[in-house]
């Protein structure tokens, strides 16, 4: 019977479709009892990673249902952040806490919801406290994850315009007085809590 069990095991493993006892016996040497061999085999596979299951009149080997999650393969794809997202992120990092309206003023274009959502989802930005201005708009600030990713101790470690220029990232002189206030009138009563403004003094 051990040998017949081996035979059934091999047939069940290799067959492309569930197979009946009769079909198994047709392939096995004369006088074999596939039905009994399959019962032995079924017990043998109880509790294992693979199980012998009955499909209608036929039998098949299947992976244990509780291990189905192993049959998933996760492929991770790394993509570069879009220019809009990078610019939005940069503005938040340099000007935090900053409102959507302020971001739009600096970028000169409206900020799509998708861009902000993406940055929120990546956990590189989060909501800061609301501005004490009419409409009490929400603000955005960068997160610890952001600092970790870019290897920064704090957002204050971001290089200022002067350093950017020294590094050759700025070709032209910044116009005098064009400090990164990004702020509209609504902003004036709120002193910048991070005091990042001085970073941009030329």
């Amino acid at each position: 019977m051990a040998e017949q069990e081996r035979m059934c095991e091999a047939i069940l493993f290799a067959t492309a479709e569930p197979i009946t006892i009769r079909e198994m016996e047709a392939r096995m040497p004369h006088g074999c009892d596939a039905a009994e061999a399959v019962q032995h085999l079924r017990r043998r596979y109880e509790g294992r990673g693979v199980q012998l299951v009955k499909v209608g009149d036929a039998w098949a080997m299947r992976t244990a249902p509780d291990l189905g999650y192993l049959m998933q393969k996760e492929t991770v794809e790394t993509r570069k952040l879009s220019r809009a997202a990078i610019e939005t992120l940069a503005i938040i990092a340099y000007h935090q806490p900053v409102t959507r309206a302020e971001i739009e003023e600096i970028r000169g274009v409206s900020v799509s919801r998708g861009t902000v959502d993406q940055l929120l989802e990546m956990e590189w930005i989060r909501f800061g406290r609301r501005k004490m201005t009419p409409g009490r708009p929400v603000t955005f600030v960068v997160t610890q994850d952001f600092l970790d990713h870019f290897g920064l101790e704090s957002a204050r470690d971001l290089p200022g315009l002067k350093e950017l220029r020294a590094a050759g990232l700025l070709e032209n002189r910044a116009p005098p007085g064009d400090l990164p206030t990004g702020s509209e009138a609504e902003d004036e009563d709120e002193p910048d809590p991070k005091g990042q403004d001085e970073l941009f003094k030329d």
Partner: protein
Amino acid sequence: MGASMVDDSFEGPERVERVADRMAAEALIVDVDGFEGPLDLLLTLGRTQKVDLRQISVLQLAQQYLAFVEKAKQLRIELAADYLVMAAWLAFLKSRLLLPPDPAEEGPSGEELAAHLAFQLERLQAMREAAAQLMGRDRLGRDFFARGIPEDITRVRKVIYTATLLDLMQGYARLRTRDEFRPYAMDRDALFTMEQALDRMRGLIGFAGTWTDISSYLPDAFTRDPARRRSATASTFAASLELVKEGRVEIRQAEHFAPVELRRKE
């Protein structure tokens, strides 16, 4: 193995073309197309010596091969070029093996050449045996089998977005300097292109029966602003030269810095 394997072929200079060789060669001739090149033929000929390949007489083999080629010639069977190249080389090898070595002669000795040929034959034979062993193994899909019902693996795609500090700083720098800095670009509005000039000239040239200063062909909008005037003058001059090339106008200039004039060619 080198020299020893050719020792037995030094019995004497007389041709050892035996009848059996000739008959074997004739049998082979029938199957010329069945050989995978000269080495394969040599290997088959070598088997008639009924010795281990290591003891094969290369001289005898060379003679068998040459007899084969000779026979093919008599039967007017065309042999592929590489068979003839091999024949020429074996004839050379044969002479090297039969003549006493000339100490003044450069290059490998007959024994060295023979040893290499024997090595090649042995290696080819070994590869054939290895191939046969390989093909005789238990094989997937014939003797053993893979899972008949492979289960699908669902692919979960996960995208991670990333950026570098440099991206961030460049992005910011781009924003902060946007107003005063823009990438270099040609200011097209101050430009009168050669194509434009050519178009204009083609339309006007029919009326230029007399010598006319080309500056009179400049469009009005391009005569006041110096930058625009320069551009229009250059393109109009270039367009004029093009028309000269086409044989439609003649062009002249009395002296340096004098006005350039043109007229329609009759």
